[in-house]
């Protein structure tokens, strides 16, 4: 029982890390994206 619970917790932590990674990449993409938009608007 305790083993199953540990597995569930580590599974949730892995999923949380994956979520954070995706969101971090998204934030970086927005940062770069704003440079691209301004450069496109005024080459």
């Amino acid at each position, binding site marked *: 029982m305790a083993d199953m*619970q540990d597995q569930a917790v580590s599974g*949730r*932590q892995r*999923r*949380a*890390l994956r*979520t*954070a990674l995706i*969101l*971090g990449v*998204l*934030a*970086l993409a*927005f*940062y*770069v*994206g*704003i*440079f691209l938009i*301004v450069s496109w*608007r*005024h080459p």
Partner: protein
Amino acid sequence: MSTVAATHDTHAAEHPSGIWRWITTTNHKDIGTLYLMFSLLMFFVGGSFAMVIRAELFKPGMQVVDPVTFNEFTTLHALIMIFGAIMPAFVGLANWMVPMMIGAPVMALPRMNNWSFWILPFAFLLLLGTTLMPGGGPAGGWTLYPPLSLQTGTAFPFVIFAIHMMGISSVMGAINIIATILNLRAPKMALLKMPMFVWSWLITAYLLLAVMPVLAGAVTMLLTDKYFGTSFFSAAGGGDPVMFQHIFWFFGHPEVYIMILPAFGIVSEIIPTFSRKPLFGYESMVYAISSIAFLSFIVWAHHMFTVGMPLAGQLFFMFTTMLIAVPTGVKVFNWTATLWRGSLSFETPMLFALAFLFLFTIGGFSGVMCAIVPADYQYQDSYFVVAHFHYVLVTGAAFAIMGAVYYWLPKWTGHMYNEKLGKLHFWCSTIFVNVLFFPQHFLGLAGMPRRIPDYPVQFTDLNMLSSIGGFLFGASQLIFLYLVISTIRGGPKAPAKPWEGAKGLEWHLPSPPPYHSFTTPPDKEVWEHPYRD
């Protein structure tokens, strides 16, 4: 309740003590406390800038500071209150309450949580330190419009760096909150079963994630324009200063909702508790917050009507702005319907929530007035706008934060606060905040521009009245400071659920809660409470 309390561990004994505990902590409650304490400090620092501003505006002529210092103080007041007081207060509340409300033991990324807090004190030391640099601190307004902001002296790169640090802190905080809510909810707790405060923060965190990098990009471009020869916003080099305004407000308008959506969540927790009724229209509240968040991305140019734009642009931004009144109205009517025929009691948190309901709505209405293009030509850059956004941010966001502190302080500290002093703080704040900001509507309509240290004599009476309200409002906050400190230090013992009508999962834990909230996820019977009708 006892079954939940029995599942707590005793890890409290394992963490370091003294200052080292606070520096190295990865505990969501400790980090929540750090955020809230930092926010309280910044509230008084930003407030003291406001006191100087009101002292200068007490009568016409120059009496307290020179115009450059006045401009520095208006700029720093805004930056500190927005990024140092309001936002960290909400992040602190999220850190404390979100894990407890969803039945999680910790935040999903505890080390990153520690980092995202500890960046902040350095960012604000840097920002405040710029006032001592040659040429002074930033004085071009918190909007940092070029070319004016590019005239800042040595302080400029430090201000930009401080803003980057605040942005990184906010983005890390947002990622943590989203990762926690999406992955660490109690088993079977569907999204539409979450408390409204958690919902409001989930949506706010997405807003933060989307717009803080945009602000960071815009200020990086300012930096390269000043020091590396680019001309993103320099007309002389083929760039466009108005482009900065578009980018800034693409960040700036969602930022306004970042500062008010968690307040909506707080009020949605407090009103049902003291009405002893479920929140009216739970799902419509969730959809209303989502709609407001979506609309916040397509209204930004209403801040720039007088800059000049095609008629189609003016109409688009006018109508989308007015559309926001629909979901906001849904929320106001739902709170009112929750109150309707409720068994009401008026403890301090409820008083702040009710004041929010009335006074935030005044700010909302003056916002709709500003959305009307031809009328906005009159209001733009006047004290009417100052009155509008202070009703939204002080009687809206700050009042909700104070209400939340009174609501959850017994849970955090294990002590009840002094209800009489709490009510005194409420009435002083509510009366004086109106004396402070209501006259500013008339000053604006009469033509007084914002961001000026001196003014024609016909504006004297209302400015004096406003300043008196300001000093008294500022003094009233000392009651709040005393109450918070005295409740932390002692007071009557608070039960696990000090409010009879409270329903959330956090009230199933003892007061104060154990170091780790839920090491075993709570059962459905424990967290399923009647949020719906």
